[in-house]
């Protein structure tokens, strides 16, 4: 389980994350939602150690976050983060070079699954294709946790469905997924738990099926209540 305890993050004087405590369990798909600028991406980056915390702690399976954990916690940022000059094949080799938990076979499977051309250059990929490659590089790792920043944003409908199908596939099974999105309504039924961010704090944290069962509300309804109130 990824545990976030009283994490604070300040950019200059702006307090982006005031006091965040939450958990993302393994085997569950947790969705981080919030209005623009509520610090969703910042929280993901803070968890991944890509930006220093102003306070608080991040623990993965009980141990404080350290660089060794990049083998078991994969992060798929909102843009593809490989140099434009690299080919898809070179990216795969790069991942194999540096990550012991990289599974070449699964990588090839994913390339096929997403129908990506290994010879194409990163710089020349369309936004959708780049997002798919990004997914491949993240999911190719035999990681226990996968964090994704806006995996669906700005992508054509078909690619989005294609990507969404990954959530339902065995690729995700018994892994902890924590992702952020704006298009919650399309993927609601894929999510186990929702964490709602508002002005740097956790507004609400709940399991979707419980809300549906107890209050018969969809996640979108709850969001309307919290954010429009």
């Amino acid at each position, binding site marked *: 389980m990824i545990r976030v305890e009283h994490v604070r993050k300040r950019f200059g004087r702006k307090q982006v994350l005031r006091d965040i405590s939450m958990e993302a369990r393994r085997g569950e*798909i947790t969705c981080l939602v919030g209005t623009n600028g509520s610090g969703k991406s910042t929280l993901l980056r803070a968890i991944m150690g890509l930006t220093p915390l102003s306070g608080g702690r991040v623990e993965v399976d009980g141990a404080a976050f350290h660089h060794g954990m990049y083998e078991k916690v994969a992060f798929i940022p909102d843009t593809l983060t490989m140099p434009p000059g690299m080919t898809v094949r070179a990216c795969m080799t790069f991942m194999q070079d540096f990550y012991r938990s990289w599974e070449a076979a699964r990588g090839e499977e994913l390339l096929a699954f997403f129908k990506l051309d290994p010879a194409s250059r990163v710089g020349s990929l369309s936004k959708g294709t780049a997002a798919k490659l990004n997914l491949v590089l993240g999911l190719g790792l035999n990681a226990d946790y996968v964090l994704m920043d806006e995996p669906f944003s700005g992508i054509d409908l078909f690619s989005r469905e294609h990507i969404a199908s990954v959530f339902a596939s065995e690729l995700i*099974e018994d892994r902890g997924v924590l992702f952020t999105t704006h298009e919650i309504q399309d993927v609601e039924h894929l999510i186990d738990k929702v964490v709602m961010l508002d002005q740097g704090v956790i507004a609400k944290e709940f399991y979707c*099926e419980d809300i*549906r069962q107890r209050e*018969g509300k*969809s996640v979108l309804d709850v969001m309307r209540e919290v954010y429009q109130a």
Partner: protein
Amino acid sequence: MQAGIFPPIAAFNNRDPVYLQVVRHFKELIATGRLEAGQTIPSRRELAALLQINPNTAQKAYKEMEEQRLIITEGNSPSRVTHDAQLLGAIRAELVREAVEAFVATIRPIQLPTDELVEIVRAAYEAPKEGE
């Protein structure tokens, strides 16, 4: 064959628990005979992929169905629909009752006389479906 009877995600609404909707869907399949007694059903993982739902939800749906003894899973062989005719009959009755209750709830405000209502329902029911 299998894929046909499991429609993709569009069929689900977001307000009712998804796993219950899956269970209902199975009941409909059983009630309508598209799933015969004893027939094997897809594994949890296959179902999640087919229905494009979260594997945990598929897992929960299977657990619910096993509790309701709709399906039986021995060891790790694929799950099967129950043979228990009496249970199957009960499922059909449950579905009919739910449908009727829903229909009655929606029609009541119009306050039609009962026999007139019954007449309309018989006509609609016996009219050949356009598609057939």
